[in-house]
């Protein structure tokens, strides 16, 4: 595809439900990032993949958050037992890394609302 795509665009979950958010990066992009953006705030880093390897998960807020990228392409961010504080926009970005000066290309985001 031409850009990074994410699905679903909107997700409403009841507190305690599990959710899965999908990211399709730009083909050939080795690096993939997940960010969490609260309303009116800047995005905050969650986790980073280089191909299928999760090299940095220092930003995941709790063990309820889990991310994977099993074949080095599509990635899924899973949130278990959702809480109201998980309500945010989840952004995915992909990159060619140092080769392109670390420029990241962002998807449209998934807006998660936990009731």
């Amino acid at each position, binding site marked *: 595809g031409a850009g990074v795509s994410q699905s679903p665009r909107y997700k409403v979950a009841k507190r305690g439900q599990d959710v899965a958010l999908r990211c399709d990066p730009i083909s050939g992009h080795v690096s993939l990032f997940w960010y969490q953006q609260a309303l009116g705030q800047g995005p905050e880093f969650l986790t980073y993949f280089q191909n299928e390897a999760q090299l*940095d998960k220092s930003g995941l807020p709790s063990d309820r958050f889990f991310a994977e990228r099993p074949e080095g392409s599509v990635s899924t961010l899973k949130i278990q037992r959702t809480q109201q504080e998980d309500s945010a926009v989840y952004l995915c970005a992909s990159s060619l890394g140092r080769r392109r*000066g670390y420029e*990241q290309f962002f998807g449209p985001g998934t807006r998660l609302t936990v009731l």
Partner: protein
Amino acid sequence: AQTVTQSQPEMSVQEAETVTLSCTYDTSENNYYLFWYKQPPSRQMILVIRQEAYKQQNATENRFSVNFQKAAKSFSLKISDSQLGDTAMYFCAFARSSNTGKLIFGQGTTLQVKP
């Protein structure tokens, strides 16, 4: 730890005029990248301009230019000949060049261009 600060939550400018958005950052690194990203109301984040810290020359991209003051740890964005399509939230971001390229964002500045 690196931090990025944008002290102007909201700004407005008349169409065709010039506006400057401020950004300061804190790091002990010597090599890094600085970015300005634009997030229009549709929410897809796009790169506006990038600066490599080891380059003394300020980056320019058409109507967008930066004033990079490495000693002062300041990285402001100047938008010349403002257009209605420049209305968006603007984020300043930092990435270590020796790291994964994960971005540390400021809080953002909402820019309104008025006709």
